[in-house]
């Protein structure tokens, strides 16, 4: 045999070590023999043979590793464990999103609850609406400042701080109907697309019946909620990645030990 053929065969024998163990144990000698036969065959020129062999190694290595992984992963116990872990991590990720989201959303109402309660109490003692509400204007589309509006018993605007396009406006009539019956409502009010207000509406009883609304633009908190959602999504993907790599690693390890 020519010395360069011996080197090529050594190189090929080393490359065979890259195949999965089961495949290598079953076929490495016969594959080495087939490569040897091909080198000795005068009908197969060395250049095309080496190109074919290199391509064949690249393709078949990928195929055999995938086949090994697939056969390991389809073992019922391993698959079941991976699915259970994936399910648990999905539920965890949902909680990771839902709990901070709820905390953020609920805390967004805090100043409005206080404002609406205080304002309703003032109006119930007979203070005029224009006196009870501080003289400031809040552009509810742009400002993150809290504002208070006062409405009469039919829902008509009496006075207020929160304006949209220069006008004090009110929530849909259905909100007043609900508050008339239940005393208070905490709602997300969208006076126009892109403007969302965390609003607390409270009924005013006594001499001058009506409603007060305390609200605040949700923009900043919604941005934080989106950020929390992204973090929870990344945590979920990371957990799934860990489960997948752990499962693959365990499959590979147990496959080796089984031999």
């Amino acid at each position, binding site marked *: 045999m020519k010395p360069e053929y011996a080197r090529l065969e050594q190189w090929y024998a080393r490359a065979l070590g890259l*195949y999965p163990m089961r*495949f290598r144990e*079953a*076929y490495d*000698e*016969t*594959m*080495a*023999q*087939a*490569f040897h*036969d*091909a080198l000795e*065959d005068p*009908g*197969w020129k060395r250049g*095309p043979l080496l190109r*074919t*062999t290199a*391509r*064949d*190694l690249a*393709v*078949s*290595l990928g*195929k*055999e590793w995938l*086949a090994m992984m697939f056969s390991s992963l389809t073992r019922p116990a391993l698959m079941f464990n991976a699915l259970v872990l994936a399910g648990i991590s999905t539920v965890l990720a949902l909680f990771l999103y839902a709990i901070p989201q709820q905390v953020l959303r609920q805390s967004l109402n805090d100043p409005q609850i206080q404002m609406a309660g205080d304002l309703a109490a003032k109006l119930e003692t007979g203070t005029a609406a224009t006196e009870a509400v501080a003289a400031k204007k809040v552009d509810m589309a742009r400002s993150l400042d809290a504002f208070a509006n006062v409405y009469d018993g039919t829902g008509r605007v009496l006075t207020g701080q929160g304006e949209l396009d220069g006008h004090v406006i009110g929530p849909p009539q259905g909100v007043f109907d609900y508050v008339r019956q239940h005393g208070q409502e905490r709602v997300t009010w969208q006076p126009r697309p892109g403007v969302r207000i965390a609003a607390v509406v409270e009924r005013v009883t006594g001499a001058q019946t009506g409603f007060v609304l305390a609200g605040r633009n949700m923009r900043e908190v919604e941005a934080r909620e989106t950020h929390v959602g992204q973090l929870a999504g990344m945590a979920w993907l990371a957990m799934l990645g860990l489960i997948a790599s752990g499962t693959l690693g365990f499959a590979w390890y147990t496959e080796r030990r089984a031999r």
Partner: protein
Amino acid sequence: MVNSDMPKTPLTPPVLAILLSLAGGDKHGYAMMKDARTPEGGAVTMGPGTLYGTLDRLMRDGLVKETGTTDDERRRYYRLTALGRATLAAELERLEGAVKQARVMGLLPKRGRA
């Protein structure tokens, strides 16, 4: 292990080439690679990795088996099973149908039988 006793087609070019080669008798690996390269063997150039990977799956599916005979420790011989032969026949019939249709459509020249 035989997974099914029904031939499954279509076959990939390496599988067709291996079955065609073994239809001529028991062969070892390199003999199949050599047959596969010829025009009548399918003109499929494959290396040892593709050959033995495909043989491994063909044996698992019961289309091919090892004969158990060897003329060298590193050379093993393989044989078509009845299912392998039936699968090859089914594939050739399928291809023949396609070729006939191609001739009808004028995609191939019409040839008379010698």
